């Protein structure tokens, strides 16, 4: 066990714990989106979990920094909050803010972080970059909305964890990146019907269940699976 100081509070964590885990386990909230407990290699792609370590003159992502004995960490410095607010505003500018009609309303991570950081959900000083295209996953049960997706990658990670190999993947590149489905043509073989972990883990409901109406338009061979999902 190693001892370190976070926000002037002394905490004790197991060796090998990253700073984000260390904070969250000790009741200190650090905004984060792409990190899941137990990840061996956090992607550090959301750029939200910044903290400041004494002796380092710039904010550092906490998910990729191992806790060390005697470290002095601050989670709420002006520099950290500035970067976090900036990152969240960028994500919101590329997200279709329509909480009333969204299945993630009231349990959405963007709402939680916006409230925590004091950032309004509609970003005034940036244009909206929302992609109105509906990307069809080509999946019998799952639907994907790129206008909500924040590309945290948790759906891909959890799919790999549950199924051994991921059925979801990042597709295309750069700003056009979306989630894609590495489909199996024989949809009856899909493990998805018993799993749906991606739907549960998505912080913004970008990946969600097709409505029963859409599901019923599938070829009749899937009639027994229809009952499972409904």
């Amino acid at each position, binding site marked *: 066990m190693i001892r370190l100081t976070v926000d002037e509070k002394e905490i004790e964590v197991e060796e090998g714990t990253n700073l984000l885990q260390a904070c969250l386990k000790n009741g200190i909230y650090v905004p984060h989106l792409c990190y899941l407990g137990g990840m061996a290699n956090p992607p550090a*792609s959301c750029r939200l979990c*910044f903290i400041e370590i004494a002796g380092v003159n710039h904010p550092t992502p906490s998910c990729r920094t191992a806790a060390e004995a005697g470290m002095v960490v601050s989670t709420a410095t002006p520099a950290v909050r500035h970067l976090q607010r900036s990152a969240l505003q960028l994500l919101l*500018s590329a997200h279709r803010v329509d909480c009333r009609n969204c299945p993630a309303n009231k349990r959405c991570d963007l709402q939680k972080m916006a409230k925590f950081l004091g950032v309004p959900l509609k970003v005034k000083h*940036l244009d909206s970059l929302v992609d109105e295209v509906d990307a069809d996953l080509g999946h019998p049960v799952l639907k994907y909305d790129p206008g909500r997706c924040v590309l945290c990658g948790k759906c891909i990670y959890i799919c790999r964890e549950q199924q051994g190999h991921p059925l979801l993947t990042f597709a295309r*590149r750069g*700003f056009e990146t979306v989630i894609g489905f590495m489909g199996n043509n024989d949809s009856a073989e899909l493990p998805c019907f018993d799993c749906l972990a991606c739907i549960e883990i998505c912080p913004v409901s970008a990946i969600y269940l097709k409505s029963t109406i859409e599901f019923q338009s599938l070829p009749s061979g899937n009639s027994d699976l229809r009952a499972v999902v409904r």
Partner: protein
Amino acid sequence: MVNVARYFLDFTQNESCGKCTFCRIGTRHLLNILDRITKGEGKESDLDLLESLGRDVKEGSLCGLGKTAPNPILTSLKYFRDEYEAHIQEKRCPAMMCRTLTAFYIDPDKCARGCEVCVGCCPVEAIFTAKGRKKAIDQSLCVKCGECLVSCPPEYDAVRKVSPAELAPIVERPE
């Protein structure tokens, strides 16, 4: 220099892998703002936004691409801020590189009469014969390719390039 900054950002934005928030979304915003400025649609608040967003992208990005992509903007803002301000406040491009903010016209005092070289080289047939057999450019058709400027014989040197575009006189096409 505004055009130079836009050119480099266009390249780096396209090269962005898309993994981290700042580079994927931030550089797209920076490019959109620069595009607006080069088209004469810049706002007063754009310069401060370019500066602060550029710094955030530089500091918050995951890899070297994101950390250096805003550099052309930040340094050109530092050393050539007056060019940015001219684009926004006067709709003028001091370097005369931004097409929307520049225009070509033919100086009737220098035009040779009956030369026809510029008429022949114009890809959109925007040059016509006006009063006194001098040539003139139809601004509604001109695509600002600059061919007429290059092809006008040096002894006449009659084609002028100006910015802002309003400085180019409108010449009525005879019926």
